[in-house]
């Protein structure tokens, strides 16, 4: 036996990296996306103007950026706005959004499901129900098939 059979390093090689036919997504220069404006959203929440806060927090979604911090900040901000709504106003909030807005909201909701905290799941589930009746199953399919998400 002339081969070195002791080392296990070959088991950690990522074979896909060496595949010359590997599909690489198109790069979309997203380094400038900073996510929603924190100051603006906070002030709107304090004023109690929740509809405007919802519109503001869904602006500038950090979809193309690779900066994980920006994405986490944006998610936290969205969660803050969603929790600030009263249960009876959730429906009105969703109605005020257009089709793209509902899709974006659904993306944030599923992102929020990934890291549950105290009360977040209950709030997100309420919003999920209303967003589903507005956007239908197609909306959820678009969250699942999106190559770049929030």
């Amino acid at each position, binding site marked *: 036996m002339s081969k070195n059979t002791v080392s296990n390093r070959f088991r950690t090689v990522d074979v896909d990296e060496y595949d010359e036919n590997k*599909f690489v*997504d198109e790069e*979309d220069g997203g380094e400038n996306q900073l996510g929603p404006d924190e100051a603006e959203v906070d002030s709107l929440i304090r004023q109690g103007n929740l509809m405007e806060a919802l519109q503001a927090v869904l602006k500038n979604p950090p979809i*193309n950026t690779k900066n994980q911090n920006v994405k986490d900040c944006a998610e936290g901000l969205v969660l803050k706005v969603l929790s600030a709504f009263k249960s009876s106003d959730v429906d009105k909030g969703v109605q005020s959004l257009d089709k*793209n807005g509902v899709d974006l909201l659904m993306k944030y909701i599923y992102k929020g499901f990934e890291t549950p905290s105290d009360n977040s799941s209950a709030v997100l589930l309420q919003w999920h129900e209303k967003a589903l009746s507005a956007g*239908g*199953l197609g*909306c959820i*399919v678009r969250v699942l098939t999106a190559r770049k998400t929030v």
Partner: protein
Amino acid sequence: MSLHQFLLEPITCHAWNRDRTQIAISPNNHEVHIYQKSGNQWVKSHELKEHNGHITGIDWAPKSDRIVTCGADRNAYVWSLKDGVWKPTLVILRINRAATFVKWSPLENKFAVGSGARLISVCYFESDNDWWVSKHIKKPIRSTVLSLDWHPNNVLLAAGSCDFKCRVFSAYIKEVEEKPGPTPWGSKMPFGAVLAEFGGAGGGGWVHSVSFSSSGNRLAWVSHDSTVTVVDGTKGSTPSQLKTEFLPLLSVLFISENSVVAAGHDCYPVLFVYDGTKGSVTFGGKLDVPKQTSQRGISARERFQNLDRRATSSETTEQGLESLHKNSISQISVLEGGKSKCSTFCTTGMDGGMVTWDVKSLESALKDLKIV
């Protein structure tokens, strides 16, 4: 609307002959079964067994009465009827992955095969050597080709693939045809040239199906992110997309210059209308036979039972699907009227059933439906 249940297995693909008396289907295995219509029944008349792998595409050339089939065994066969028996001729596609889709060109002198080898094989018959030769379109396809459709000029080919893009290629073969005239999609058309490319851009899903309109000026495709997109070649190249609320659609077909029928995982066909002036795609209506819903009151016992089982006390008892098809629809084809003024179309699906839909009766049954 008539449903015929052929089998219990999914019908992977189907093709009709010219006068619509025979249908060739593949029951999700290595064979093609041809059924002949006799009265109201369908009788199996032929079994085509040559492929070694699942058949993924069948197309029947109406004028020359030849069937081309392609399968997961990386082969395609052209079948001709001789003395009442279908005889296969192997076509060397030179692909190293399964074939996924096949379509005869409008003049039936060539056919195109999409494959998992990230290329399209355009095959034509070379009479000197008496065999079918294939030419490949490779660049810039980067993933499996799922669907193809020919432009009426016999040269342009639209391809939808898993790299989230829909492209229009030129499949001009100088050995079998004259140079084509200019079209809204372009005027220089050497073989393999990409005349248009849509989609991608960080979003989108696999393009399941593409369809040219009967004039060839419009192109529609459906993709896995539950969207329908239509682009008009004469009006610049910005496609109009509609994000639907349904599950992804798997097959799309123009039934008039402005109307598109699509069907997919939701088990019923849906109509979309394209407005050329506004450049918008709108939902036209759900095309399915509405079931007679019985209006009966719900007892208190049932209410609590529903609460237990379904967490709602509503009375919508959707025990089964209300649509005619009981599983996803995988293919739609025109029966009568062509793509310009289709009067009947047919759908087959994973439930093994084939349904023929009559456009006139759909228009009258669903009152606010208008097929322009």
